[in-house]
């Protein structure tokens, strides 16, 4: 058997990095008065190539590369394809909605692609330090993107809030990693899985997991680590929010799955009740707060917190069932959320002249296409059958039920009833004729360009496929789950980190 060249294990990341560098270099070398839009197409092509490369990785034998730090498996490919797909759609939306005269378009596209590098690497990393580096790569790009509209007051506010809280959370994660290293003497995830159950200082491992959970749950914006979400979503440009609310979350959920199911399944009795509480808190807090919002993006921010809660319910499921359900939900959530943010971007406009729910009144009359799409995605978010949102919730709750968490399922389903109220409020407003007082006759009829049209079509197709024929995607999620569930291989690669003998006398 010829060993797989290490570079193949990170081929999508390499392609994305090269694309990002190319975008930046071209941006710097062409005259400033030239349009930068084609850079967006370049980024989209690079992302498509990366997506294709991830699929190609399926033909590789599963295993690790670069001294056991990066893995390719059906699990990583599932999330790579998902993240590349999300980034592609977000790029397509940006292509048509970023105003031509806006500054730093080149950087914008490059940052999106660099963020994708970090997120992809995060799902493939099996070494905690690489995990940390990947998380930083993705976070720093998104911090900058959140403040992209720096001429408005809200843009920088969003970026600074996101940055301060985000780096605080990452610090927690890093501290957790350090404690893991202290307890087991390694940061390689397979090694930790082998050593953790027999670790002498059990409390240290528990503390480490708790720290890491804080960091990861912040990234998925689960309550009580969610406070940044509404402000950041409100301040960041809508296409960025489409990306922010889906891709980094997908990557963070992949990491969470890896940490709890692959690295520390031995601590199930500790993390399972913890995630139970976080799930219940997230859905309840998210939904209750969303009920009171007037701003569409804020409402969707709280709704995304609630969805993180539904997704976390899957973690009550045992083994493959839970992992597969969580992976599937990530995909379903990404499809419908990208779709609705694309619609919101088009309706509100880049400078968000129409941010309120009231501003959507009569949308279906103003623009029948966008109005029906908005209602379609809202129906999926409610979780009506034959849409992706339904099967996402269904699998998640079925997994929880299978794990015996009946109370969690009941709370979850009651919450989805509650959530229907605010989604419907927006749908109903969009379907209503505008009254004279709130007439937006002067409101520009949003134009749907080719790129954003393609993005919307992708989102609709994905939502429908996941709702009508979820079999294939679920099957790949299950295959991925199996690779994660299987007992981690005995490490064949040399361990990078030296094992420190904690009892050795201090050095000179």
């Amino acid at each position: 058997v010829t060993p797989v060249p290490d570079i193949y294990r990170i081929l999508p990341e390499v392609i994305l990095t090269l694309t990002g560098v190319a975008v930046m270099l071209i941006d710097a070398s062409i005259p400033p008065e030239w349009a930068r839009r084609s850079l967006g197409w370049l980024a989209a092509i690079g992302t498509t190539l990366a997506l294709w490369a991830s699929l190609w990785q399926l033909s590789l034998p599963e295993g690790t590369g670069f001294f056991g730090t990066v893995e390719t498996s059906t699990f990583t490919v599932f999330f790579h394809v998902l993240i590349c797909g999300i980034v592609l759609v977000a790029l397509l939306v940006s292509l048509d909605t970023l105003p031509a005269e806006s500054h730093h378009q080149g950087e914008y596209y490059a940052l999106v692609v660099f963020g994708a590098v970090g997120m992809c690497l995060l799902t493939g990393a099996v070494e905690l330090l690489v995990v940390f580096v990947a998380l930083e790569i993705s976070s720093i790009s998104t911090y900058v993107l959140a403040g992209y509209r720096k001429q408005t007051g809200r843009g920088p506010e969003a970026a600074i809030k996101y940055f301060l809280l985000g780096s605080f959370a990452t610090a927690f994660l890093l501290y957790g990693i350090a404690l893991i290293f202290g307890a087991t003497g390694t940061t390689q995830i397979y090694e930790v899985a082998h050593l953790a159950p027999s670790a002498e200082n059990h409390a240290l491992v528990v503390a480490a997991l708790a720290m890491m959970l804080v960091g990861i749950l912040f990234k998925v914006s689960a309550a009580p680590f969610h406070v940044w979400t509404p402000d950041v979503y409100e301040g960041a440009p809508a296409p960025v929010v489409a990306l922010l609310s889906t891709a980094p979350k997908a990557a963070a959920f992949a990491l969470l799955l890896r940490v709890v199911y692959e690295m520390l399944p031995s601590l199930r009795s500790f993390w399972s009740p913890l995630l139970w509480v976080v799930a219940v808190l997230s859905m309840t807090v998210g939904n209750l707060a969303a009920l009171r919002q007037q701003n569409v993006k804020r409402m969707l921010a709280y709704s995304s917190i609630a969805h993180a809660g539904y997704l976390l319910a899957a973690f009550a499921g045992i083994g493959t069932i839970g992992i597969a359900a969580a992976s599937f939900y990530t995909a379903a959530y990404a499809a419908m959320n990208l779709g609705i943010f694309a619609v919101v971007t088009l309706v509100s406009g880049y400078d968000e002249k129409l941010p309120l729910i009231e501003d959507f009144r009569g949308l279906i009359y103003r623009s029948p296409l966008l109005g029906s799409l908005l209602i379609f995605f809202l129906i999926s978010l409610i979780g009506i059958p034959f849409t992706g949102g339904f099967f996402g919730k269904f699998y998640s709750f079925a997994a929880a039920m299978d794990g015996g968490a009946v109370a969690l399922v009941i709370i979850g389903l009651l919450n989805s009833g509650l959530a229907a109220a605010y989604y419907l409020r927006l749908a109903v407003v969009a379907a209503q004729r505008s009254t004279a007082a709130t007439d937006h006759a002067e409101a520009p009829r949003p134009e749907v360009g080719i790129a954003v049209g393609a993005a919307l079509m992708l989102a609709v197709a994905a939502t429908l496929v996941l709702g009508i024929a979820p079999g294939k995607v679920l099957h790949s999620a299950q295959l991925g789950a199996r690779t994660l569930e299987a007992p981690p291989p005995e490490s064949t690669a040399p361990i990078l980190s030296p094992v420190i003998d904690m009892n050795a006398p201090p050095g000179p």
Partner: protein
Amino acid sequence: MYAIDQSILTLILLVPLAGAILVALVPDRARLPNWLALLTTLFTFLLTLHLPAHFATSQPGFQFEINRLWIADPAISYHVGVDGLSLWLVVLTGLLAPVGVLASWNAIQARRKVFYALFLVQQTAMFGVFVSLDLMAYYGFWELSLVPMAILIAMYGRKDGPKAALKFFLFTFIPSAPLLVAILWLYTQTRTFDFVTLQHLLGHEALPATAMFWVALAFLFAFAVKVPVFPLHGWIADTFSEAPAAMAMVVAGKLGLYSMLRFHVGLFPAQTRAIAPWLIALAVIGVLYGACLALVQRDFWKLLAFAAVSHFSLVMLAIYGLTLTGWNGAVYQILSLGIVEGAMFVLLGALDSRYGTSQIAAYGGLAARLPRTATFFVIASLTMIGLPLLSGFIGEFTILSSTFGEVSRSWAVVAALGVILSAAYALWLVQRLFYGPESGLATSKPAADLYLGELAALAPLAVLMLLMGVAPSLWFKTIQTGVHPPPHTSIQVRIRNLVNPDKIPSVIYVEGER
């Protein structure tokens, strides 16, 4: 023929959906959406007629069955089929669809494409509920049936559509959450969503009794809100007065009552028996409460809504009396009510769109100006009251006599009071709308009598009311094959089929059989 029998239910499900897509694509010009919707619904109706024409009454169990695996894990199948219980409900749904289109012909002027496309999606959802034999597929269609209704109420509400839409949606969406929990719990215990398998397993396996109590209750709760059963009827008055007539008439009652018979009584016989006395009490309260409220309504949509509560409660009384005769009568009465309510919605919709008000006090003496409307209205009212030789009589009489003879005399007597009250409110409504001195409204707004489309919609309904009143055995002989005690129960049934004393239900399942 074999191939058609195999695919007929799939066709019935797909044709309205295809029609909906077509309607969404064609330009909204020259009433093109109307014609397309009419053709689609007529064609679907013809397809549904294939079912009774080729239904083998001697054969027990489900017919025209298809069972294909849809999703491997968890095992959700596309399993559809009809038996005597659902057969006529499918046909009724098929019949009411073109009636609904004709009733909306002039009433819906704005955004016809949206209206007809959603109306057709609603048809698919309704057919799906009646033919699904896989609990997940059933749940899927059940939920799907809410969406077009809610959107259309919001868009076409007469006064405060959005509020009524929200109320309708939440009232019916929230109870389906426990329903899904219950379905999932059953799956974790039995590893199947299939109705037939599940019915068999639940008869054999002893699942924890407390859990089963809650599961059965979750099923019941979801259905009871949909019917609606007193005291869960909060949504119906607003929905009836705000929804476009065509939508309200296709959803009212049937879905919940059918689901009770099939999925609550059918899956949980023991739990049903335990809770039946309570439900009988609620049903009788509902009969009286609905009738009394109908008496005092000033708005005819609300009157119709409370009359519906009263009538649906009577059907529920028959369902939870747990007698074979009662169940036969219940199914028959669901059909009859479907037709009568359909006619009522067309007629009242016609008045509302002509005069622009649903206040009963504004009307009066219309019979001279609108003779045809008055005639049909009187026929429909008499059927609703249960006049002999009309369809309502057969259903009500079967229900009341089986309750009297086999369940409880006192409850039957009290429920019969409700029937008397129904004569009072229905005839009083006729009198206030069509007779007496002409009101200012009638003189100031001269309106045309029923036009051709409305006549075409009403005539077959009126014929059916009469036919179902004089020749009930045409229907009973197929209904009987579907109505039988669920297997492995020891419900003591005294067969006393009053309509056909010599004809005992051909298939009776006793303990351990099947």
